[in-house]
């Protein structure tokens, strides 16, 4: 009864090898410490945006992969989060962490409203309704713009635009990239706790079928609403991270079409894998930047994404992340065979 177009693909896998993961974590920490210092300003900012977009993609993935629901409003919710982050930061002079949390909570609230139609609709109709919500958010944002240090509720300044205050511990671009990565990790942990806990099991039942969930005592309304609120929270946090990275946000940067792009690239990256959102984030921000670096028009990326989406829909429902893990599995088998064949 729920959207099961990619039925039969694996759920997000559980962590099984503590030792290997320990080594990976250590390597990641070292990389986190070393790499930002080696990057140019341009790439620092690109990766900060990519981290924010990874969180945004993470908000799309679980909704789709776990509950089987499509939301095309997530980039709009990013804008909502960004708006509240800027508003609170400029208006109250609150620390970045408070702005981040408020951005998440306010976007969760809006996300919950976006999700209300999900209680009655699914599949294409739900997608269209959420896209219309994204359109509504786009209109509001382009009409009112983002706060930039001015007075009043809208916070529009007539003079120079102020930059959003960054976290106390992360004033420089390098430090802020590290900070953004840490926030991303926290978002991942939040999703992991959900997926492996009670909500994850309830979502799996709902995705199997609503009669299955009802017969198992799952309160479908509550868990669907909760899924949308969680997705909204993550999108809001992503918006705040983006706002902190750039310092201000552009009223024209949150069109509804970006929500579709975000959803499409989450599918291309791999909605069912933990690496999928990272790949999606990199594709959305780092790939166009890479093209620019090679003096190729970054807009060509859109064409490449279209081809990638076709490829994903036709041959790789697990997305790029699924293909990578298939490839790794194949390599491991080949290596294992060679080791057995050797002395």
């Amino acid at each position, binding site marked *: 009864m729920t959207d099961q177009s990619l039925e*039969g693909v*694996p*759920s997000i896998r559980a962590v099984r090898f503590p030792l290997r993961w320990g080594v990976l974590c250590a390597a990641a920490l070292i990389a986190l410490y070393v790499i930002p210092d080696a990057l140019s300003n341009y790439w620092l900012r690109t990766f900060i945006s990519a981290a924010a977009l990874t969180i945004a993609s993470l908000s799309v993935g679980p909704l789709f992969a776990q509950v089987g629901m499509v939301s095309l409003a997530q980039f709009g919710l990013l804008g909502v989060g960004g708006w509240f982050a800027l508003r609170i930061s400029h208006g109250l002079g609150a620390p970045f962490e408070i702005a981040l949390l408020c951005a998440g909570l306010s976007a969760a609230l809006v996300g919950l409203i976006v999700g209300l139609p999900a209680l009655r609709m699914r599949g294409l109709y739900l997608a269209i309704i959420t896209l219309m919500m994204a359109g509504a958010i786009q209109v509001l944002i382009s009409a009112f713009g983002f706060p930039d240090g001015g007075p009043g509720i809208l916070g529009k300044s007539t003079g120079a635009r102020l930059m959003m205050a960054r976290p106390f511990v992360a004033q420089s671009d390098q430090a802020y990239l590290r900070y953004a990565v840490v926030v991303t990790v926290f978002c991942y942990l939040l999703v992991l706790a959900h997926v492996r806990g*009670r909500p994850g*099991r*309830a979502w*799996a*039942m709902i*995705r*199997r*079928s609503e*009669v*299955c*969930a*009802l*017969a*198992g*005592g*799952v*309160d*479908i309304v509550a868990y669907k609403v909760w899924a949308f609120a969680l997705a909204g929270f993550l999108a809001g946090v992503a918006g705040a991270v983006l706002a902190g990275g750039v310092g201000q946000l552009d009223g024209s940067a949150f069109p509804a079409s970006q929500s579709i792009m975000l959803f499409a690239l989450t599918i291309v990256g791999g909605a069912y894998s933990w690496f999928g959102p990272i790949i999606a984030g990199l594709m959305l921000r780092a790939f166009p930047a890479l093209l620019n670096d090679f003096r190729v028009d970054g807009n060509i990326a859109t064409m490449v994404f279209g081809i990638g989406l076709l490829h994903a829909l036709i041959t790789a429902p697990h997305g790029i992340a699924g293909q990578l893990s298939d490839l790794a599995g194949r390599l491991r088998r080949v290596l294992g065979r060679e080791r057995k064949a050797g002395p």
Partner: protein
Amino acid sequence: MIEIDDLTVQFGGVRGLSELTARLPESVTGLVGPNGAGKTTLINVLSGFVRPTAGRVSIDGQDLKDIAIHKRAGFGIRRTFQNEQVVENLTAADNIRAILDNVPIDGRPRTALIEQALEFVGLAAKGNVLGRDLNAYQRRMLEIARAMVGRPRLVMMDEPGAGLAQHESEHLRDVIRQLHGHCGAQVLLVDHDVDLISATCMATLVLDFGSAIAYGPTASVLAEPKVREAYLGMLEDAT
């Protein structure tokens, strides 16, 4: 104890159940009848998926109309489905844990309850196997395990015996026979397999066109001429 009073279910112009009245006190009760007789409709009314047009159903004296659909599992009304509904991307153990999330467990450790249930249906070694990797029979058994954890009052099974091999069918019979003793739940069994019904059910209710045409000890009910007529479509004067 299931009490059904004047239960009518109307689907547009079709009557799924027609003023059905019955008292079902036995621990394992069969529910038989030809296709379209209203067996699955009755189960769906008990589960809450179908709202009765008129009449009343109660279990252990509790009127079911006061219990929301998603609260019925917690109250103790459980079921398996004609098309099994095992969650493919959860392990067998997590399939059961997903039910334990929503039903009373009386403070007992979940892991122990899960192991107990898996062992009872013969899936003790399959706890960590994903739903999709279980075969049709194992899925059927897992559904039964899901239905019997956490203080059930009534376990309804909708054609659990369909498409099973001989030895699987025998194991199913053992499981159904022992279910009441194991968890204390009343069992309501819908099946076309008269052998399965005779082997497991103390009493049987026969439905035809949404009404009860017979109720009593299984052997004598199944021998009644009107039951044979409804089932086999034979006219009395034609014989």
